[in-house]
Every structure is written in structure tokens, then in C-alpha cells.
């Protein structure tokens, strides 16, 4: 990993747009799933799969790899799209999302698709697993870094804070959490449903380092990860402010699109808005 040149940034932004196109197409085909989260996270997943992660798409079990744990499994389409584009499997397979017999389960399962690392979907459980992996890595005196992407809504789960407390106690500097701070959840805005702020201060009180960034700005996000990697005393949480539904002006920031998918007409219009990136 290194600092980004202008070409690198353009390259990642291109990948993010292609990821968004794939997410829209696959959700339209699947006719169920979640739209807002995956579109908002496209920049972060482009950054992970095409810049940050030490990984080998042809050898997902490679021992030296960094681990990317996705806690809020309902945004799986963005991970599936990024993985396919990075070469883990054929892009055509994305069209099988949520179908009977597909490796692309509605919520990701490690026994179905190599490379997804963990089974997730029930919220508030990814950070515990990421802490376990980071502890295992430290026991073996290995250098792999563990990342954990969470939603902001799941910060309402008590178990997240059990895990945060342990990571702080163990000073797990080999762990970086990323919170998708899009401020929406199924039934409304996070601060109306159950306020999670002040998020950064909460993590700091638990012994973490916190960084606030614009999660739709790949350069800023990669820079934050760079800073997290330089930290040697504490785990870091990157609070990444994103716009849910990013890239589709009709649904940006609208919580109603958390668990809805586009119909055929919408798919067509949205792809047109994003522009041709094939």
C-alpha cells in the first residue's frame, strides 16, 4: 500500500462506478435485497479490493492475506461485485445472487463462497470475529492485518461494545474497523431510531483511535487506512461518512431504500445516470 497518485484515484473511482453498475444489475435481477448500503459502500470496497488488501483472488485461503470481515452482511452485493471484478470468480455469476443453488447467498456464507471469510448477516457479530482473528494472528506473531466493516445501525448491538472493549484491552493495533456512517437504518435515521453518537468518542473511551472521513472519497479513505496501519498501540476505527444510495440521485440519503430493490425501469434509468463503464 502506498499513497495514491491522481491516476490511482481515477482508477479506483472507475472501479467504484463499475461496482455500482453490477450492484444495481444484480439486485434488479434478484428482485430482493438491499440497495442503499451497497451503493454507499462502493468506493470503500473498490479501495479495499483494488488498493488496500494484501490478497490473492486465485488463492482466497492464502495464509499471508489480510482479512476483510464484513459484519453487516446485508450489503453483500457490494462485496460480491468487488470480488468478481477483482478476479475471485466470473462476473456472470453475480446474476445468480439470492437464487436457489447460488454461491452468492442472500447473506454471505463462508462455506458457500471462498473469500468471504465469515458468515454474516445477524448484526453486531463481525467485530467479535475480527478480534478473534486479530488475536490469533498476534499469537502466531504474524503480520496480517484484519479489517472489519460494520454498519452504523449495528452500533446499537451490545455485543459490538463487548468486542470493542476486548480490542481496547488487548491493544489490537493489527485491527482496523470501518463504520459505514450513512445515518440510516430500516425504520429511519439512526439518530431518531436509537442515537449512536458520539461514535468516535465512544470508541476512544474504549481504548481505540478514531478517524473521521468522507467514505465516498477514495483518496481520503485510503489515507485514513494508511494512518490506521501506522498505529502501533491501539486498534483504529474509521468512521466513514457515506451517502446511502450514492450515485443514484433519486434515492441518495433515503432510508426507504435500505431494504428495497429497483424494478426494471429503475435499473435502466440508474445505469444511464451512472454512465457506461463497461
Amino acid at each position, binding site marked *: 500500500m502506498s499513497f495514491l497518485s491522481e491516476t490511482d484515484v481515477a482508477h479506483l473511482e472507475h472501479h467504484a462506478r463499475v461496482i455500482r453498475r453490477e450492484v444495481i444489475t444484480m439486485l434488479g435481477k434478484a428482485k430482493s435485497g438491499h440497495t442503499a448500503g451497497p451503493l454507499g459502500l462502493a468506493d470503500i470496497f473498490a479501495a479495499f479490493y483494488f488498493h488496500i488488501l494484501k490478497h490473492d483472488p486465485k488463492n482466497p485461503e492464502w495464509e499471508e492475506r489480510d*482479512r476483510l*470481515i464484513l459484519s453487516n452482511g446485508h450489503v453483500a452485493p457490494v462485496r460480491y461485485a468487488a470480488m468478481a471484478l477483482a478476479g475471485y470468480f466470473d462476473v456472470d455469476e453475480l446474476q445468480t445472487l439470492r437464487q436457489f443453488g447460488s454461491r452468492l447467498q442472500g447473506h454471505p*456464507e*463462508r*462455506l458457500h463462497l471462498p473469500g468471504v*471469510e*465469515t*458468515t454474516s*448477516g*445477524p448484526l453486531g*457479530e463481525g*467485530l*467479535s*470475529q*475480527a*478480534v*478473534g*482473528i*486479530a*488475536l*490469533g*494472528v498476534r*499469537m502466531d506473531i504474524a503480520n496480517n492485518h484484519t479489517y472489519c466493516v460494520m454498519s452504523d445501525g449495528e452500533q446499537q448491538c*451490545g*455485543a459490538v461494545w*463487548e*468486542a470493542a*472493549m*476486548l480490542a481496547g484491552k488487548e491493544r489490537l493495533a493489527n485491527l482496523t474497523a470501518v463504520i459505514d456512517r450513512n445515518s440510516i437504518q430500516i425504520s429511519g435515521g439512526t439518530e431518531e431510531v436509537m442515537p449512536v453518537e458520539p461514535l468516535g468518542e465512544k470508541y476512544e473511551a474504549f481504548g481505540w483511535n478514531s478517524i473521521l472521513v468522507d467514505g465516498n472519497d477514495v483518496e481520503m479513505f485510503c489515507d485514513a487506512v494508511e494512518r490506521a496501519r501506522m498505529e502501533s498501540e491501539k486498534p483504529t476505527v474509521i468512521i466513514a461518512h457515506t451517502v446511502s444510495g450514492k450515485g443514484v440521485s433519486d434515492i441518495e440519503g433515503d432510508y426507504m431504500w435500505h431494504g428495497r430493490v429497483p424494478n426494471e425501469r429503475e435499473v435502466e434509468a440508474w445505469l444511464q445516470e451512472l454512465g457506461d463503464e463497461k
Partner: protein
Amino acid sequence: MVPNDQKLHTDVFDIGKVPYASLRDGLSEGLLELAEKDERVVVLSADVSESVKVAAFKDRYPERYIELGVAEQNMAGVAAGLANYGKIPYIAAYAAFSPGRNWEQIRTLIALSDLPVKIMGMHTGVSVGPDGATHQALEDITLMRVVPNMQIIVPCDKEEARKAVVAASTNGKPTYIRFTRPKVPHFTTTETPFRQSRAEYLWHSDSPQVAIIGVGPILHDALLAARELEREGIGTSVLNVHSIKPMDIEMVLEATRRAGRVVTVEEHQILGGVGGTIAEILAQNTPLPVEMVAVHDQFGQSGTAEELLDNYGLNIEGIMLACKRVLSR
């Protein structure tokens, strides 16, 4: 009589002479034995390392011990992460909270992911004693039985507990092992055969009329009941089905078909535990009359272990009565 190959303690029937020990000590010994053999073995506990007897492991292998504090849900998730990375984690806490409180984490992160996390359910049954109903897990076997991929072992004494702990390390599967708290008869020996998913006869009369099938320390009561019944002219067999999942169905059918009548014994709820398992097997193969010695859909309460076991009929008299009841049906 006791089959020769069982190599039970010579004083098995002498309450004054048979040694007593807690199953928890079997956990402690098993973990130390494993730690030496396999460096992937790690132990996690939730602020109960002393009472669940993992403190010896903690002292000897501090780099492989993780203290979670009072956080059983996180414990299951951290263990899943460790197993995902390649470790063999043993998590030990009171069963009322693990698998009680963290059942969903066990279901999703451990069982659905088919990770070899070993869940040590401590302080089960009413014999926990004075702590009362909140801390007496009576539902744990049922909770674990309904989860695919999960294997379950319920040892009957300290030695079998040690063997179960050691055996679980190599099965590659999510595994639940159930322990009780008090000192109970230590009636099996290092030579007593133990193979996961294989049942063993602890007693076999020449012509058994009742097959007594059960798990845990109450099997010692079953043995004493079997000897007493034999004196009264009632032949029985006592089958130790320590591996509840996968169950040794062949042996269960052999024992029950031979006897024709069945009594199940367990220090657990009557719903979905050993009795439920045996009833399911019989209903699908050879329907036979079954009486169940178990806690009958009630919670526990405070008292000494002995008072409570007597109160719920989990004793020699309770087992003998059940045998006579099933014979009169």
C-alpha cells in the same frame, strides 16, 4: 452385571469407598494434556476461570488464554474468529449463559460456519445447588441438539470428562460438552472404553426387561438401581449414551429391542433432551414404552445438590420407580 470390558472402579457399588471428584477437574486435566500436544488449543473464559477450573491452563499457558470478562456473546464470536484463523478454541462459562445467552452467536458464527469451537457448558443441572434456578442450566442439551453441525458429549464423571475434552479436539466440528458442578462418584477408569458417538453398556443383566438409557453422573445412580432391581428379580441394561449427537442409534435400537421397555435418565429438562432423543429414535424405528427420569418442565431452586436431586426424583428411587412403571404398562 457390569461388562468386563468396562473396567469400572472396583468400588463402584460401595458409596463409602468409591472416590468422588468433580467433572470440572476432568476439564482442567484434559486441557493441560491437550495444550502440551497441540499448540493450536486456546482457552477462553468469561470471568469464571477459577470456578470452571481453567485456571491451571491460564497459569501455565497465559499466551494461549483469553479473558473476556462477563461477555459470553463476544466470547462465542471471538472463538469463531480464532477457529476461523486456525486455532482450536475451548470456551468455558456457565451453561445458563453459554450456550444460554449466546445461542444465536453459536448458531450463526460457529455451527452455520462449521467451525471447531468447543463449548464447555459448566454448572448444569439442579446439582449446581444453592445458587438457584438462574444458574442451573436445564435446557442446554435441547438448545444444542437443534443446531445442525453441532456435536454433543455429556460425560458421567471426571475421567469421562477428561476423555471427552481430549476427543473433541480432533473431531474438527463444533462440539458441546456438558459438565456438572459437585463432586460425584468417579466410577470409570482410564481403561474404560470411550469413543465419541459410541454408546457403552455399563450394566447388562442376562435377560434385561428394561433398557435404562442416560447420560451424566446420574448414571451412577442408574447402576445402583440396576443392581437393586436385579436383587428383586428385574433384569435391566444400562446404556451410557454420552454422545448425544451424533447418537449411536444402532446400540440404542439393540438395547431397547432386546429389553422391550425403556427408561431414560438425565439431569435436564424432559423436553428435547436425552428422553426426547431416544423417543424420536424409537418412534421412527421401533415404538416402545418409555418412562423419562428428568426435570418435568419446571425450573430449579436453591438447596443442596442432594436435596434438589431428591426433590426432582433424580435418584436411585426415582429410576427404580420409573422401571417398575414402565413394566406395568
